[in-house]
């Protein structure tokens, strides 16, 4: 049985392949350097049945950085995010074309287990979704399904995760109360604590603050800054200010409308350092979006 202190990522079959030294297409302006890319996607297209939701996305996501996905509704940012931990496998008819590499290993190879992937790549959802269990059981859920049965170690993990999520002081006296009695902001921080409890390598966040007020949002943004030294974070957000506040790099997605077939497909327009993308975008669509003239 693994102690929580061990870096579970280190011994995984998924990570055995050497990190590929690879350049992403030059027009993205982002060049991967060895040893720090966590995800590399190369020309991926994502389909729901015959409908192509996202086309031709290539980007590199780096270790210990916060990467933000922004763009108008329906541009496929959430779809791309859910591709990174194979959550789209749960959607009937969803499929991915192109290469997604996670730390050098092909994420969609036949012998890759989505379960093993998701144990390393956690996810926080748009709406807080605590289990109808106690606060303690919510946080201990992940370690328990990973086989941790030792009560002392479980309690340590629960406390550490809740502290990391800046929730410990508020809930330490009611760990055995239902998680559903918490406020929305507390529930979302609990969901973050639950994700951190399995010590993932990457935390994917799908609009984690969209259901929260500005104060709770601030708490979660602070939390992201604190944990980024240990985790790689990818966040989808509708809020451009949030992207500028928290992220190191930003990917701007947009929608291509095909007039012939009347379908909408998401595309990656621009991916760059956040400051660059917001102050000096290369693409006119990005400029229109970040200055508020579109979307």
């Amino acid at each position, binding site marked *: 049985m693994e102690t929580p202190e061990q870096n579970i990522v280190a011994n995984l079959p998924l990570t055995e392949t050497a990190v590929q030294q690879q350049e992403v297409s030059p027009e993205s302006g982002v060049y991967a350097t060895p040893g720090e890319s966590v995800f590399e996607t190369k020309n991926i297209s994502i389909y729901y049945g015959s409908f192509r939701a996202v086309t031709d996305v290539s980007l590199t996501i780096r270790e210990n950085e916060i990467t933000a996905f922004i763009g108008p509704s329906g541009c496929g940012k959430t779809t791309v995010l859910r591709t990174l*931990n194979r*959550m789209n496998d*749960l959607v*009937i008819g969803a499929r991915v074309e192109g290469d997604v590499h996670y730390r050098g290993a092909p994420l969609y190879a036949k012998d890759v287990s989505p*379960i*093993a992937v*998701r*144990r*390393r790549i*956690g*996810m926080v*959802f748009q*709406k807080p*979704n*605590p*289990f*109808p*269990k106690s606060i303690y059981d919510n946080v201990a*859920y*992940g370690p328990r*399904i*990973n086989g941790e049965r030792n009560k002392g170690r479980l309690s340590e993990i629960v406390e550490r995760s809740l502290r990391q999520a800046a929730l410990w002081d508020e809930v330490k006296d009611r760990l055995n109360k*239902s998680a*559903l009695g918490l406020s929305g902001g507390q529930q979302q921080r609990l*969901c973050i604590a*639950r*994700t951190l409890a*399995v010590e993932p390598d990457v935390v994917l966040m799908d609009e984690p603050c969209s259901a929260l007020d500005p104060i709770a949002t601030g708490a979660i943004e602070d939390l992201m800054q604190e944990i980024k030294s240990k985790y790689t974070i990818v966040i989808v957000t509708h809020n451009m200010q949030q992207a500028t506040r928290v992220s190191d790099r930003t990917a701007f997605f947009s929608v291509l409308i095909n007039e012939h077939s009347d379908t909408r497909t998401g595309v990656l327009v621009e991916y760059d350092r956040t400051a660059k993308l917001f102050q000096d975008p290369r693409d006119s669509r990005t400029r229109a979006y970040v200055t508020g003239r579109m979307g």
Partner: protein
Amino acid sequence: MAATTGQTVDLQEPPSWRRSKNRIATVLMVISFVLVIIPLGFVLYTVIAKGISIISWQFLTADIPPNVLPASIGGMGPAVVGTLEITALATVLAVPLGVLGAVYLNEYGGNKLLAKVIGFMSDVMTGVPSIVMGLFIFSIWVLHFGYSGLAGALALGCLMLPIVIRSTYEMLRLVPDPLREASYALGASKARVTVTVVLPTALGGIVSGALLAVARAAGETAPLLFTILTVTTVNKNVFSGANTSLPSQIFANASSPYVGAQARGWGAALTLIALAFILMIVARLVTARFARNLQ
């Protein structure tokens, strides 16, 4: 704004039929409710009036005497024991099978042909008359192995199965998908998601649905007519030998010309109603308790 013009604002409803229609509809609803209650009231009144005088500990435990004997002698012990035995055995047979069937339909079946066929057959099974279930078990079981409580339990189980499948399926459908996703995102397998999140969340509804099916089966006469016969002494072995039950006994005693037998029949009817009533109350308590957990 017209706030300073000095005119008072007219907040009265413009003259219309709305209030009268509202009153008529309310009265109609109350009348239909009373109409629905009347038969129930009469049934309860009749059964209690005719049955209460005979109920005693002796009545609930003593052997069934010959029909000619007066009401003061003997009781319905074998029928009480038989109903409890046979219903319990039917529950043990039908509930796990039904719950597993519903789990397959909702969690694993998806759009598979097998799932569609099972769902359809289960709905068809709901419509099979209970006496046909009795005949079915008579032909495939009783003809080979003889009358027994087990044969009765098989017939009742066949009757309960589609009810349990349908009610459990509806409960599983109510479990929000975000809860499943949260569990998947922590690296849980489908089986774990089902066992640790879906079933506990739906447990209250599953239990109350099962108890309603049990209450329904406990009152069935027709499936037992050709499967257990009737006996006058307690048969503790539910797996072999003829048995009896409260509904069978009510049927037998009601067709008897003797006053004493008829009085014992009324007593059996009251006992049966009381049993069903207790089950309903337990179902309500269980549902309420788990509903609180879900909020």
